[in-house]
């Protein structure tokens, strides 16, 4: 399973490196969404906004939806699905590999978005650094949930259902991430919100390992 996960993650990351969809399309979209959020709040409130962690996670969720779609689109080109199926890869390993690649891509995107948050929304740098471990765990849970729901909606017209189906699953992660980020910025119970993200991470990885093969076959 681990060998397959490394193989699939390496392949997905190499494809992203080649196609540069993340660099030229997804990250610029995220930065624009962050700028628009700042404009929507207005110059006075954007500079002193306690809404920055929420806006950051909202943009991360939008970016994650794009990246989940992309992650499954590369498997869905005509012929690829059938040919890769004949490689007989362990579905649990495929799930872990795709989730790992997505997590790394989300982490890279979030570095830019956090920097944007500090520059555009004037989020405290120290608090942002304190929040980093919880951000990394929350992104892992988002990657696990996204990969699972991506498999569920990867066939044909079902792809448009991804936001509708996955946003309810993302909502608790968005809340836990926002609360722990806010706690890191302003003081408060950071650890308990972080634990929720850790539990969600373990739960989604477990579900993915168990169900990914069934979803692929169906």
């Amino acid at each position, binding site marked *: 399973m681990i060998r397959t996960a490394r193989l699939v993650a390496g392949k997905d990351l190499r494809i992203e490196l080649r196609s540069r969809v993340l660099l030229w399309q997804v990250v610029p979209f995220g930065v624009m969404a962050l700028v628009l959020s700042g404009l929507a709040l207005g110059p006075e409130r954007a500079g002193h906004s306690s809404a920055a962690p929420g806006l950051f996670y909202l943009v991360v969720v939008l970016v994650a939806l794009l990246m989940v779609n992309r992650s499954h689109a*590369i498997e869905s080109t005509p012929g690829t699905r059938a040919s890769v199926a004949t490689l007989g890869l362990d579905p649990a390993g495929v799930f872990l590999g795709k989730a790992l690649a997505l997590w790394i891509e989300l982490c890279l995107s979030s570095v830019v978005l956090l920097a944007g948050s500090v520059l555009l929304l004037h989020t405290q740098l120290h608090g942002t650094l304190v929040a980093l471990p919880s951000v990394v765990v929350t992104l892992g849970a988002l990657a696990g949930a996204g990969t699972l729901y991506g498999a569920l909606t990867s066939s044909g017209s079902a792809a448009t259902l991804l936001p509708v189906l996955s946003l309810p699953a993302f909502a608790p992660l968005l809340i836990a991430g926002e609360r722990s980020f806010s706690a890191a910025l302003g003081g408060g119970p950071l650890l308990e919100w972080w634990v929720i993200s850790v539990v969600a991470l373990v739960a989604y990885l477990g579900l993915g390992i168990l169900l990914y093969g069934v979803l692929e076959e169906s």
Partner: protein
Amino acid sequence: MDRADTFVARLRGAVVLANGFPLLSGVDLELERGSLSVLVGANGAGKTSLLRLLAGLHALSDGSGTVLGLDLRGGDRRLLRRRVGWLGHEGSFYDDLSVEENLTFAARALERPLDGLEPALERVGLLARRHITTRQLSAGQRRRLGLAWLLLRRPELWLLDEPYASLDDEGRVFFDDLLADVVAQGATVVVSAHDPLRSAALHPRTLHVAGGRIVGRDA
């Protein structure tokens, strides 16, 4: 050699349904080891569905069948898929990976040594193009890459869906030579095509497919 060893695939009344629609509606078929069979029929006749059933890509809805000793009804189709070679008519690769990277991915997935990669590319005439992305290949070159993928795998059963599409005359001759070699080495090959094979040297068995069934056989 007993009967079980003689046949790599046996289907009895094989039915495949997709959303209630019959893709195959009662196929009886026996494939002898080391044989070359050509499925001939119009679009929508069921050629691709039959190949996909033999590859373990479609589930058997009714009837019975074994492929490479694995039961299509109760067996693990993932095990079967690892042992067959599939070449679809749509192409089979990650467009943003290079020719070499695609083959390396397949070889690692199947735990095959990478030293077979260069001879396979040389055999299909793509060695000089190993570093370009698959997206940049012509349709005919993508076919050749698909063949390199299969040469690397060395499957017992080759299932080729309209392999002559997009090939020029030189490509067809090359492909016929390759098929002859593969069959001579003991592999079983099933090819789908719109017309019977032109090559007299291959001596294939032609199976006529229509309405999801095999409706005629030419020796």
